[in-house]
């Protein structure tokens, strides 16, 4: 058998194999299971609702809220300025620039924290930085920020400060207990630092 026929047969065989197997569309995970365990235990991905409210009121430009619920739920209610990236589309290439970036702090939220955590786990394993989860989700947001409960008279002073802030925030966000807005006095919340990403060049080429 000559070289030509060997090459022909090899090409056809490889072609048939590659046509039969499903395409590899998986994106390789960057973090190992051990690294993920450390991340999860550290719970550093959590940001508390009061902080987020604070950043929202001060119109912090580096904050990007991402709503991972379905578009229907997003339509009904969403936090101001949030983007809707449903969990099912978290890996799609159009959303890549939002979830893999080095300029903003993404805060993912869902009703509870399951959906947002699911999204966060996937993104984190892909090695993406700067993604966080809104602690307690929207449910907790409603309970604390939108309808804050007055602390009992015996509570510590800081509880009252928190309550005042929440009531003020509630007014800003159009919640029930609208009162005159007192400038939020909460201390400048410590913000997770945005990890600058060395902007990877898009694959270059061409003549």
């Amino acid at each position, binding site marked *: 058998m000559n070289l030509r026929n060997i*090459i*022909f047969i090899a*090409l*056809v065989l*490889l*072609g*048939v194999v*590659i*046509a*039969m*197997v*499903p*395409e*590899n569309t*998986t*994106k*390789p995970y960057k973090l190992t299971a051990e690294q993920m365990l450390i991340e999860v235990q550290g719970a550093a991905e959590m940001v508390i609702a009061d902080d987020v409210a604070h950043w929202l009121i001060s119109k912090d430009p580096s904050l990007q809220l991402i709503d991972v619920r379905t578009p229907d739920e997003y339509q009904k209610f969403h936090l101001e300025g949030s983007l809707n990236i449903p969990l099912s589309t978290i890996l799609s*290439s159009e959303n890549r620039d939002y979830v893999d970036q080095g300029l903003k702090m993404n805060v993912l939220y869902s009703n509870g924290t399951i959906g947002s955590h699911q999204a966060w786990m996937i993104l984190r394993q892909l090695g993406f930085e700067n993604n966080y989860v809104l602690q307690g989700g929207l449910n907790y947001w409603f309970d604390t920020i939108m309808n804050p409960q007055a602390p009992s008279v015996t509570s510590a002073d800081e509880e009252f400060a928190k309550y005042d802030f929440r009531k003020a925030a509630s007014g800003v966000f159009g919640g029930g207990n609208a009162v005159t807005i007192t400038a939020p006095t909460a201390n400048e919340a410590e913000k997770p630092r945005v990890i600058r990403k060395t902007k*990877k*060049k898009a*694959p*270059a*080429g*061409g003549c």
Partner: protein
Amino acid sequence: MGPLIPQEIIGADWNLFIAFVIGIGFGFVLEQAGFSSSRKLAGMFYGYDTVVLKVFFTGAITAMLGLLFFSLFGWIDLNLIYVNPTFLGSAIVGGIIMGAGFIVGGFCPGTSFSAAAIGKIDGMVFIGGLFIGVFFFAEGYPLIEDFYMSGSMGPIKVSEVLGISGGVVTLLIIIAALIMFKLGELAEKRWPRAEY
């Protein structure tokens, strides 16, 4: 893991050195295949020598299969591979002008360099022409910029347009190529040329 440099597994400093090494391989294969001979290249269009068809398609298919298998084994991330963007109008008109240049000049840019490397004066003149042609384009760019940028479709792939997997596209191309190879071999028998 691959592509190694975009994934920063090999430092970006090595990129140009790797380009040089890959170029050596490219030039060596082009010359060994006979692409340094304009008469061999032009034979494609008169049927007496279809080496262009055979090398070009075998090369494209090998690389296609390689990319898909590398991706399958997780050796390369196809998202990081450059896919040249499609601008339909300029691609067609540019291709027509290149086709005219091919049959008139007997080379394409890559092959003219491999011809010049072994001392072919016609290859060197062709390269000189390339510089003039690129210069004309650069100077005339304001006039054609609108056309050049029109019809942008982004880096789309045939598999996406047809809605089938890249593997199936590859198999179809392999079958088409084998038919063309057979036709080419028949043409070489039909219009034989003495050795040149």
